[in-house]
């Protein structure tokens, strides 16, 4: 395609709302999913730390 200007690129021939609404939601979903998996991992590690302390009375 090779756009003639940035504003043409963002306008997407009048379909900007639909095209960027689609790509934008994909980016948002990606960010949320990665964030949620990160948080889940961190919570699991913290829980394991807490378990370790419970078992030995001090940091394992």
């Amino acid at each position, binding site marked *: 395609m090779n756009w003639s200007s940035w504003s043409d690129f963002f306008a997407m021939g009048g379909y900007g709302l639909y*095209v960027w609404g689609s790509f934008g939601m*994909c980016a948002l979903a*990606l960010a949320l999913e990665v964030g949620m998996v990160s948080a889940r991992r961190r919570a*699991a590690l913290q829980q394991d730390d807490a378990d370790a302390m419970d078992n030995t009375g001090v940091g394992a």
Partner: protein
Amino acid sequence: MADKRVNWFRYAAPQTFYLLAGRVVPWFAIAAVVLTAAGLYLGLWAAPTDAQQGEAYRIIFVHVPAAWMSMLVYLAMAFWAAIGLIFNSRLSSMMANALAPTGAWMTFLALWTGALWGKPTWGTWWVWDARLTSELVLLFLYIGYMALHAAIDDVRRADRSAALLAIVGVVNVPIIYFSVQWWNTLHQGASVSLTKAPSMALPMLIGMLVMTLAFWMYCIAIALARVRAIILERERHTAWVRRSVAIA
């Protein structure tokens, strides 16, 4: 002479798989990033405008990958659920659990991007045709799998019940795939087939395939990362988790 053959069943042990997945996730993530960059360049920059749909067609570069992944991830999820059910292997069930949220996201994105594509091109956000409806059912199956699993206290019983749901739901995937052939649908028929030449312009096709590969690499990376978290949760009583957490 030592037996040099690999015993692949070693990787059915959560501890061994945890380490393997940890080494492999970064590579899939890098592949996803590189392929996404290439795909976005191809789809948003290099590919020409469509004669009929103008720029709106560019949604294809996320809609088709998300839709294909929604089906592929379900098949993978049902496969591992079945293995977990038949062979009573914990890790297989954990993998099915790890795939469900990713598949649900892909299904949601397929429906969302589809609606945004349908409005300017068909004049409607939604229609109860065979493909759209069966894809919506797929979303309900994913959510149902996760909800059923969460509702049962004993994690192994939850694995087994949810596995049955996943397996029974597999029939929906060929329904989605063949819906455009079997029924008269608003959703267009297949432009890409294993047996015929594609009816799509080459730069568009290549961009779509690159983005599909990108989504695939991402799904593998994120599902493996999630299964690692699940392993840490479920295996917290084991010595290896306690040891590795102490070091980490």
